[in-house]
Each structure stands twice: as C-alpha cells, then as structure tokens.
C-alpha cells in the first residue's frame, strides 16, 4: 500500500532558551502513507511541524528528502522541494482574495515587459485557482473574493486546497479539522485520502482522535519532545490512543535509528 521512503528526520532537537521543545525525534514517511502525529499540548508537535516545513531550523539532527540530506534555510526551500504545510489557523492572509492566497509566493505574471516588472496575470490566477480547488474536491465560493468574507470552514478548505494542489511529495496538515463541522471535517478527511491515493506522503496532526484513527496508516505519539511510540493505526482504539498520549498506558521508548 505504501511506497518508498520519501521524507525522514533523524534525531532532531530544538530548544527555545531553556525549554527543550524537541529532544531527538526521528520520523519516517513513505509515499502514499498517512501518518498521524499526536501528543498533548506542549509535546512538541508544532515545533516538529515547523522543522519539517522549514519554518524553524533544528538545533541538531538531519532531514532527508528522497534520501538526500536537506537543510531548509526558509520555508521557500521546502516549498520548492514539494513539501507543503498547512499551519494551524494562520496559513491564509485574510485581506487577500482566494486566488491571491492560492498563488501567494508562486504568482503568474503577464507576458513581456510588464511581467518582468512583476505585473500579475490575475485572470489566469483566478481561473487556475478555481480549477485547482475543484480538482482537490473542495466546494468553494468565487476565487476572487477576499478570504475575510469566507466562513471558517471555507477558509480551511481554501488553505487545504492550496497545500494539496501545490504539494508534489509531502503535505503536513496541522489541525486541519479544527473548528470544522462534522460534514466539513469529513470532506477534509476525504481530501487526505485523495492525496494519499495520489502517492503523496501526508502528516496529519490532530487532537480529534477519531479523525486520526479513521484516516491514518500509522500513529506517532510525541510526549515532552520525544517520540514515545510509532506503531500501525490498527493497534489502537480511541481509549488506548488517549492512554498512550497522556502516558497512562506505559510505552517503551522507540530507539532513534
């Protein structure tokens, strides 16, 4: 079902002042695989996401994409390599339109001299944004409306559509089903399955454990900056997963290889 190893972090650590946010975490992601990243608040999930997406540079450890070691100086490097990230709550600029958000950082320009000056080809961007979002299977309003006029669910749909349509290797989704109704959350899970079918590697971070159990192949549990368990999803139910996250159920530390 899952393909080759595409994304790997080995023994990464990150500290903020005296706070150790990540303490030697290792993770492997294969093509066509969905892994769930779970843990209590402060377990280091968001820090790991920022390391994986290039937003933060780890203090130690290595990152490999397709077997090649990479150092992300900024999110741009990761984006260009095909690693897309949906950050919790803040991936969109609310004052910009849907199409401007979808194309932000990857604009289409007019041809010739005007394009050289940076003048934008808005018509093409609006049309293509509309097509891209439709392809991802997201119901959405006009791509020329400001994001501030959309509902929370619509915003999330645009953010996910943006990530999925640009990703060529890996998508990292940090709490994508937060604040969503049951039907909208179901749509997000459907989008994740579609991304998996396309052969992308997906990292899904969520506090909503039933969603994690529904859509993932493997679950990685973080506690206090360490990965305490990394096993197939089939070994869990909601209760055992919750117990593992909180530490009520004893775990054996997985050695970083």
């Amino acid at each position, binding site marked *: 079902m899952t393909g080759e190893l595409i994304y790997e972090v080995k023994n990464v650590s990150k500290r903020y002042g005296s706070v150790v946010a990540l303490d030697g975490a290792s993770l492997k992601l294969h093509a066509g695989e969905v892994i769930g990243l779970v843990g209590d608040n402060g377990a280091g999930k968001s820090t790991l996401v920022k390391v994986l997406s290039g937003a933060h540079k780890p203090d130690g450890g290595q990152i490999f994409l397709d077997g090649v070691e990479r150092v992300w100086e900024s*999110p741009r490097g990761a984006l260009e390599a095909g690693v897309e990230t949906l950050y919790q709550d803040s*991936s*969109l*600029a609310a*004052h*910009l339109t849907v199409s401007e958000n979808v194309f*932000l950082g990857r604009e289409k320009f007019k041809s010739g001299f005007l394009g050289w000056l940076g*003048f934008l080809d808005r018509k093409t961007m609006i049309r293509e944004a509309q097509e891209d979002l439709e392809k991802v299977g997201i119901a959405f309003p006009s791509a020329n*409306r400001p994001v501030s006029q959309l509902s929370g669910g619509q915003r999330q749909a645009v953010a996910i559509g943006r990530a999925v349509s640009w990703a060529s290797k890996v998508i990292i989704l940090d709490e994508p089903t937060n604040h969503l109704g049951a039907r909208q959350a179901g749509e997000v899970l459907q989008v994740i399955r579609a991304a998996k079918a396309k052969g992308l590697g997906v990292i899904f971070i969520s506090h909503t454990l039933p969603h994690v159990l529904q859509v993932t192949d493997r679950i990685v549990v973080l506690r206090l900056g360490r990965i305490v368990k990394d096993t197939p999803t089939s070994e869990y139910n909601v209760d055992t997963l919750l117990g593992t996250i909180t530490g009520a159920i004893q775990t054996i530390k997985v050695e970083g290889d």
Partner: protein
Amino acid sequence: MTDSKQATGVAPRSFNWKPLVTNQSSILVFVIFVLAAVFTVYSGGKFWDIAVFNNILTDWGLVVLLAVGQTFVVISGGIDLSVGSTVSLSGVVAGVVMVNWMHLDLSVSNEAAIAPLLLALLICVLTGIAVGLVNAFLVNTVNIVPFIATLATLGGAAGLAIIWSGGMPLQGPNFYGLVNPIVLGGVSLSPFSFIVLVSTITVLIAGLFLHRARFGLYTYAIGSNAFAAKAAGINVKRHLTWVYAVSGALSGLAGMYAYTRLGSGSPSSGAGFELQAIAAVVIGGTSLMGGSGKMVGTLLGAFLLYEVQSGLLMVGMDPNWKQVIVAFMIAGAVGVQGFNFSQRRK
C-alpha cells in the same frame, strides 16, 4: 483590483447601497465637492479659482509623494515617521553638494541650472534611500518596532540636516519655471506645473505597482499576515527593506520638490510633514493595522487635507486653527473606518 468582486457570488438582490456609502473613496469625493461648494459660497466666489486650485495642487504634490510611500509602509503593517526629516535632510545634502562643494549659487538659473538640478535630484533620492535602508535595518535586524525605529531616524535626520546646513537654508541654483503652470504651444496647462506633473505620474506608477504587481501583493500579504507570507515562501525581511527604501526614495524626491519650490535646501523644509502624510493615508481609508488600503484614497486624502487648509484661509479663518481642523479630520476618518469595520463584522 476593482470593486467588481463585491458583485460576484452574491444572488441578485435589491440595489445594495451599503458599499457605496461605506466606501471611503466615494465618501471622500463627496466631501471634497461639498467643501468646495461651501468654501466657494463663504469666500464670495474667491475659492473657485484656478489660482487657488494651483496652490492646493502645489502643496498636494509634495505631501502626496510622502503619503504614497507611507501607504506602502502602513499597508505592510508598519509606519514611517522619518519622511518629513528626510525631506529636510535630502534637500540640505543636495544644497551642500551644489553650494559648498561645487560653489554654485542662485545666479545659476533656468536652463543653466538643469544639469546641477538633475544631480541634486539624484543626491536627494539616494539620501532618501539611505534613510530608508537605516529604517529597514533597525526594523529587520535590530528588531525595533517601526514606530520607534523611524522615530529615531526622524530625530537623527533632522539633526543632521541642521548640522550640515549650519542651521540656515542653502540657496543654490534653481529653475522657478518648474513650479509655474506648464505652457504648451501657447496654451497654459494650469494648474499643472512640471513638479506637480512629476508627482502625479509618480503616484500613478506607484498605484499600479501597489494594485497590479507582485510588489503590492506582497505588501498586502505581509501586512495582513506576516507568518502566512513567510510560510508561502516570501522573504518578508527583504520585502520590508524594499518598502522602507521606496518610502525613503519618495521622501528624497519630495526633498527635491521642496528644494525646487524654495530654491534652497532648508533644514526645516520637511518639518511636521510626516503627520500630514500619515493624515492623508488615514483619511484615505488605509488601516493602520496593515493589510488594507487604496492608493486612490491616499490621493484624495492628501487633496482634502489641503483643500480644507486652503479653504479655511479663504473664508478668513485664523490660520492657527489649521492644526485643530486636521486633527478632527484624522479622528473623523478613523471613526469612519471603525464604523465600516464593525459593519463588516456583523
């Protein structure tokens, strides 16, 4: 960007008057015409004169340059308090070069002054860019909030302008024809003088870059959500450096504008103009929170500012009231913004 997006995706309903009434630009056009009528009546017709319009536009031409740069800075989520001092400093630096170094004085005038004035223009713009880069350095690298960073350069630039000029205006070469209405083939293009025309063209180009090009898009994106902009791969610091450099360059251009009007580089030529520029931006509907604003609003805001100041003089009001009136206009404009904001949130 046009307002046509208002119409898309909405089921046809009865005429929607709200956007028209709450659109800051249409309010401004309305206020400008109403005030013109009021001033005309109360001044006994004196206000409605091409010469008055000429004066308003000549004042407008200087501050609108500052306000345009300020618009970019404010949309990006910052503020640039140093623009007024930069006007003074750049004019003084140009004066020092022409008067003290090249030993030119006001006897070099008209056609003979063109070459030194072009040099002065270059010097002014470079001085402005230098101040802008200092601002960007303080904001990006030293991590000082823009308000404090540019407050520091406001003081620094004003001080340098006094030191380098010796506290006195440096009178140098000039071409006063640049300030008079353009005459083309015997026809006066009044109220357009050469310098007002240069300002107008600069503003139009800046507006195109703000609303139609990537430069503007990144400016809005950073002001709207700097984290999202960075996550989308935008080099936020590099873009902000450009934004402050543009504001500085336009302030330098305004410094040359002031020099051309006065015929000298004066250490006080830009004093207080930062507030006029910020007032124009705010009256024009740009939010100090960043992320939104329109160039047209800034143009109209700057025009309204000088229409009111000019008009009050024409109807015989004590000029000392000017500042009070401007203060009320700023408060009113921000009030309207707040009203619009709360309407939208509903």
